[in-house]
């Protein structure tokens, strides 16, 4: 089932309220619980199952050897290279998943002009964060304030080999992440003490894009995808609030989707990988100021630049499971009662 194409140039009227400045947007309606049979993609063979019958089958916990690999990367364009977590650099699969934590940021620095002090409304001009330690919600987050290019990503891979003599049916419960984007144009706010609350004047960026992408792969092929991309259209008559959204695949969460990967026999292997991307990139050097505050000549001003944030919120897959999903197996109905 494909997602509706609801991407269209959206124009927002000019507004003069502070509430309109920060538009935190849930990118899609939370998806309902869903069951997907992806056995053809995962194993090459379509295996029919009756979901109701299958749900009553006993879990099989000892039929496979499991190994895990996870990695987080983050980059900001003020640094020469991306960073990764957790060091040291190694390709070794572990017997358990880990919880990488990574943060890269460039702080904003207040400055003086004469005796006036200008302080940025955001403490960072760029922020890349992958926090799999957070409880209960983990974050893959990229944020820019003004101009900047920021990328954050995390991956969890499970490599399993079916070692049991009898076949087992393998499933993934995907904890579909929520995906939140914040876009707040740069603005001037003059005379905040006025009876009408002051006057806002918004600034257009030269360019701004963001993306949240969540993908699940089985043996190198995609079995579940969600992507939501934001584009500031930058047309000659664009309002600072205009945006175009590209939607792909399934709805973002929070939700749980169960995927049937297929029936594995002794010696079969299967690799399941979840990759989450959060990216923002903006060319928005035109910031605005709010003020003055204080008394002559020591005025204070607050600087408001374009704020762009993509935040993907992941959930634990369970005890000793990767963040975002868990893999398990059940005894196929036909196998029950079979002689050893």
């Amino acid at each position, binding site marked *: 089932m494909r997602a509706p194409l609801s991407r269209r140039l959206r124009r927002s009227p000019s507004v003069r309220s502070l509430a309109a400045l920060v538009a935190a947007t849930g990118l899609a309606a939370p998806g309902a619980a869903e069951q997907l049979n992806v056995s053809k993609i995962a194993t090459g063979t379509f295996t029919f199952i009756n979901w109701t019958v299958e749900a009553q089958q006993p879990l099989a916990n000892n039929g496979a050897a499991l190994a895990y690999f996870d990695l987080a990367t983050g980059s900001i364009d003020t640094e020469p290279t991306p960073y*990764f977590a957790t060091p040291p*650099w190694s390709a070794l699969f572990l017997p358990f998943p880990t919880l990488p934590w990574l*943060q890269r940021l460039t702080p904003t620095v207040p400055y003086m002009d004469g005796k006036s002090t200008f302080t940025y409304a955001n403490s960072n001009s760029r922020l890349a964060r992958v926090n799999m330690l957070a409880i209960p919600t983990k974050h893959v987050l990229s944020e820019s304030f*003004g101009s900047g290019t920021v*990328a954050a990503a995390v991956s969890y891979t499970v490599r399993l080999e079916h070692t049991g003599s009898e076949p087992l049916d393998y499933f993934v419960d995907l904890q579909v992440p929520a995906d939140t984007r914040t876009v707040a144009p740069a603005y001037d706010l003059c005379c905040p003490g006025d009876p009408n609350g002051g006057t806002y004047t918004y600034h257009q960026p030269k360019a701004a894009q963001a993306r949240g992408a969540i993908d699940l792969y089985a043996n190198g*092929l995609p079995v579940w995808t969600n992507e939501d991309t934001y584009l500031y*259209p930058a047309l000659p008559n664009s309002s600072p609030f205009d945006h175009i959204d590209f939607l792909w695949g399934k709805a973002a969460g929070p939700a749980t989707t169960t995927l049937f990967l297929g029936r594995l026999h002794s010696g079969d292997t299967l690799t399941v990988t979840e990759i989450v991307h959060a990216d923002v990139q903006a060319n928005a050097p*035109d910031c605005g100021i709010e003020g003055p505050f204080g008394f002559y000549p020591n005025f204070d001003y607050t600087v408001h630049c374009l704020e762009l944030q993509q935040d993907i919120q992941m959930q634990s897959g369970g005890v000793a499971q990767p963040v975002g999903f868990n893999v398990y197996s059940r005894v196929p109905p036909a196998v029950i009662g079979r002689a050893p």
Partner: protein
Amino acid sequence: MTGMPGRKAALVRAGSSMTGTALLMAVACSAPLPVSELTAQQAATVAGYPEVSLADAGFTTSTLVDVAALAQGTQTDVQREADATAASYAGLSLPYPIQPPPGPAVSAPPDAASHIDFKKGGDSGQGWATTTGAGMPFLDLTSFGQASARGTASWTAQVPIGPTDTNLYVQFHLPAAQVTGFTEQNGPSVWQDRLRAELLMNGHPVWSTEAQRQTALGNPLSNGGDNCINDFEASDNLVVFGPSLGLVSDPGQKSPPKTVTLWMGSFPPNQTVEVSLIVRGETQVERLCCNHAAGGLPEEFCTRATLVLDWDETPQPVRFWVGPSVF
């Protein structure tokens, strides 16, 4: 409180202050990612290092095509091979004979006549995906009317690291790409394409590029269910994340083919590194084709979305080397 001293100067300095005097804060539990794209000179040096053959790396290929079309349902084709070409094909349209009958593109790109004629096929989706035994990806995806086509061409290798020289280098080739479409005025619709290529180390993208293109229509009155009124394409928007393949705003322009050579870092001795390339494409058109009477006969008018990663026969598109540091 009426003065606003130095306002214009302040705005200028607002930009320069953040980029010029910023402090960078490092966190102890992360480290610089030891993956970087090599220069042509460095790549030439690496080409003299001991090479790991695809066979010794347990090279496998896989492909997926998944299409959906109005009233035709969905169709999925998957293939996986070891050290051989994997090729998938799927197509859905109104029934009509296509000559030659389309099938997987194993040794050559599909014949032009194998592509669906939307005047006969109406709302339709069609796709080919191939990964050659040498690791060259190929995608040919088209949606007409209310349809979508997804294709994936990927390969995976298990590259052994030796006991002494532990630097891994990977080279892969991406053919010329076109991410395009056409808005039919007598069957207007928004359409969109995406192309993503990612080089993975143990499942994590250490090199990633994505291009998305989408159109917007110009007549806001056409947002309803009747899409057969005249509308027009108001804008064509290209978004790129990661290193650019060279696609430009003109949807008729292809990107040039690209060979990428990466240093993947130095690994502990005797490890095995899983290296994969996943190239994915998707095309979607939102609204169904319009059936207008033309000269007394019904005729389909369809908006189209197309994504092509060219058939490319550059030799040795994938190579692995394990050797000393090139830096």
